[in-house]
């Protein structure tokens, strides 16, 4: 089966035609609406909206590498939330003294940890929706509308493009090293990784030199022209995120303090 790439994912999204800045504002409205809430209802609502957007965008069809990255982050998130549960002061349910540190499980700690966890998961869903429906070069070209310096957007697009070239080289080198038992023990692993990193660096510098010569041969004058510009931000795309943010704040006020378990 052919592997799904990130570019294929974003360019096949149903929301590709939406203005990138509009999608960014929508994502920010949802993220900040969830962040400002002290009721668990709001992050749950944002999670639901995020999941609906994600499903409508590309039916939960993601490259495997992204799914692994998200699962990896989820594990780190569990550790962070666990610590918050143990350190938050409040009505103590369980306590343990460890020399200078006192670990206690409080009602408030569980509530706060639940809120942070749902908020983080909701944030993942919203970020995933945004990343899977917006080709990142589109976003950075669109940022020029907000007077972000052109050299920054160009630099960002070039970093994005070169990353995929280098990750391919890195993959081939790792596979070649595996075939030669380059990862057989810890010492070999370090040596192999060091050699691979230096090789990718050397190659990338050669590549930059070749690309520079090629560009000058094509009359490069320090700027990259953009031929297919993404949709522009319209007033509708400013009003809708503002309404969503205001609605989330109102829901938070009506819902009261966060859920007590």
């Amino acid at each position, binding site marked *: 089966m052919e592997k799904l790439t990130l570019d294929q994912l974003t360019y096949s999204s149903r929301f590709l035609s939406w203005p990138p800045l509009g999608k960014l504002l929508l994502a920010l409205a949802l993220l900040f609406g969830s962040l400002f809430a002290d009721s668990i209802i709001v992050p749950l609502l944002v999670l639901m909206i995020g999941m609906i957007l994600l499903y409508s965008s590309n039916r939960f069809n993601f490259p495997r590498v992204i799914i692994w*990255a998200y699962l990896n982050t989820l594990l780190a*998130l569990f550790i962070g939330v666990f610590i918050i549960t143990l350190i938050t002061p409040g009505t103590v349910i369980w306590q343990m003294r460890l020399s200078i540190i*006192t670990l206690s499980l409080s009602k408030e700690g569980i509530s*706060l940890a639940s809120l942070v966890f749902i*908020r*983080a998961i909701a944030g993942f869903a919203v970020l995933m929706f945004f990343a899977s429906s917006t080709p990142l070069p589109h976003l950075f070209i669109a940022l020029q509308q907000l007077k972000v310096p052109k050299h920054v957007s160009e630099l960002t697009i*070039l*970093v994005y493009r070169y990353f995929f070239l280098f990750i391919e080289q890195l993959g081939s080198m790792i596979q070649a090293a595996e075939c030669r038992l380059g990862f057989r023990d810890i010492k070999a692993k370090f040596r192999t990784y*060091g050699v691979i*990193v230096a090789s990718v660096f050397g190659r990338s510098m050669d590549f930059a030199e070749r690309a520079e010569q090629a560009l000058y041969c094509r009359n490069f004058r320090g700027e990259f022209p953009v031929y297919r510009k993404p949709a522009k931000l319209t007033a509708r795309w400013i009003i809708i995120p503002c309404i969503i943010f205001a609605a989330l704040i109102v829901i938070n006020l009506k819902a009261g303090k966060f859920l007590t378990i």
Partner: protein
Amino acid sequence: MHIAEGFLPPFWAIFWWLTSLPFIIYGVWKTGKIFKKHPEYKLTLAVSGAFIFVLSSLKLPSVTGSSSHPTGTGLAAVLFGPGVTALLSFIVLIFQALLLAHGGITTLGADVFSMGIVGPFTAYLLFRALRALKASLNISVFIAAVISDWITYVVTSLQLALAYPAANGILGSFTIFLGVFAIAQIPLAVAEGILIVIFFDYLKKSRPKLAAKLLGKLK
């Protein structure tokens, strides 16, 4: 060490954004100045940014059984200076947040401050100081990489402790966050230090011209 999306309360999310912003703006100004004088450096810098991103996708073995990735920002700071690294880190951290869920948008300010500003600045200053004290290249690179990694974890622990103080105050939660991270991050920082030393060593042997060019810059 990225702080995940939604993990910081609004006050701290905004506070760290405002703290990082002057450094990012300085990086934007500095790169703009460089590009005006040498437009061809756009490609070199872009390639370096992509290299940092690639480096951060490498899985390093750790003695605790877990694995993690090098940050690469210490290396960038040593090669290009801390100002440019702040901007490069900002760009790479946006990609990591959006594509890999490492970090987030609301926590981007905090992540840039620990990984793109404090870490690289420490690496740069330490490296310069050690070279001025006539320490060997390998020792200077190793110490700069390891200490800057540790400082990054200390700052991340402090950011989390400020946001979530324990019953006995910020110091209490700082000790707990630092203690939990130390188990994995102390050996990982040493691992990254070793990796970067091997990197420079191999570069000197396999690409003497490129190494000489870089080492000339690093004197």
